[in-house]
């Protein structure tokens, strides 16, 4: 039983160590990646007004078509 606990403690130390190591390396990697991307592939500051999503955009299109059609059919 003590042996099992020892395994558990070792697992905890190694485990948390790897988790921190892994995510810390990811932090470093992201920082490098972001600066590279921002330098070599600069982007216009995202989409300026993403007020309405794509579905609504196609809704607008669909509605204007539909309304148009509706008028044509019912006049």
């Amino acid at each position, binding site marked *: *039983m003590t042996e*099992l*606990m020892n*395994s*558990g*403690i070792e*697992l*905890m130390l*190694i*485990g*948390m160590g*790897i*988790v*921190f*190591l*892994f*995510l*810390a*390396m*990811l*932090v470093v*990697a*992201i*920082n490098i*990646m*972001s600066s590279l*991307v*921002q330098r070599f*592939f600069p*982007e216009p*500051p*995202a989409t300026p007004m993403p007020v309405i999503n794509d579905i609504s955009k196609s809704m607008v299109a669909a509605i204007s078509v539909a309304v148009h059609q509706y008028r044509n059919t019912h006049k």
Partner: protein
Amino acid sequence: MENVVSLWHSTGLYNFTSGQVFMMVVGFVLLYLAIKKNFEPLLLLPIGFGAILSNIPVAGIAEEGGLLYYLYFGIKTGIFPLLIFMGVGAMTDFGPMLANPKTLILGAAAQFGIFASLLGALALNAVPGLDFSLKDAAAIGIIGGADGPTAIYVASKLSPDLLGAIAVAAYSYMALVPLIQPPIMRALTTEDERKIEMKQMRSVSKAEKIVFPLMLLLLTILLLPSAAPLIGMFALGNLMNACGVVERLSQTAQNELINIVTIFLGLAVGSKLNAHAFLQMETLGVLALGAVAFAIGTAAGVIMAKIMNRFSSTPINPLIGAAGVSAVPMAARVANKVGLESNPHNFLLMHAMGPNVAGVIGSAVAAGILLSLVK
């Protein structure tokens, strides 16, 4: 006459065992929690229903040749949790995390809950009647990852007998995050800390969002290939969504496909809720340790955030550390809500989403470690 007798002998009333009755009650309780209390209904409803179906005497729905027997292959092979993880990946926006990468460290700290409850499970072996192997303990610990598919994937590999209890505990405690976390968060922070406002985040470019899942996958491959199935499928889903060129695949992955697999996975998990495996002292241990895992993970995240706030150039509200357990997006919402109590103009939601999605990565990494080291 003979037929009437044989019919009576084929009724449930005649054949019920007390264990089956009890497990059905468990199933109905899960349905109640799902429907009435809105506890993760997408999973707990099919799981509860699966529990009922699999405990019907005579019908043999979870035995060889029955529906749930076949569906369980999807869990045994890992296919179902991996497909769900792909769908979750497609729904995840890493923007807030990429804008503030150091929040990843909060997602690491919160995984302490996993390993603490692993130790706790081993310690519980001191209680007579409990006998957790290292594999069992690891599978129980993963509840602290607060991530359903990861928990199911790990439990199905390390401790299939505990799968039912572990899945139920994982989803139940995720649903209980708004109750479990706030007291811990308040206890570990001062009013002033909870008032801290964080700097507006920069916007993240599309290119960064495309490169990130590939980078994550690459790091996993290099360092921890045992986490590659989980993180790989997660990264695939995320890439499909971020890249914008396979919109129809991404939509299907995060809608119809994940819905279909969720129904099947839930029913199949329910099929593991049988008296033989569930009505054991071990289950009480699992439920107790699961709660401990969530609490410790929350505490570890908050404490790490306090430490980071001390050393960081920009202010960090310690509340967002609690979101590191994952339980996306519930934990981030809790952080936001507790923050608003102290400062009604302080919207922490976006800031908490960083550690929140980092927690998903963190628990997948922890899962890889457990799968790799626990033999």
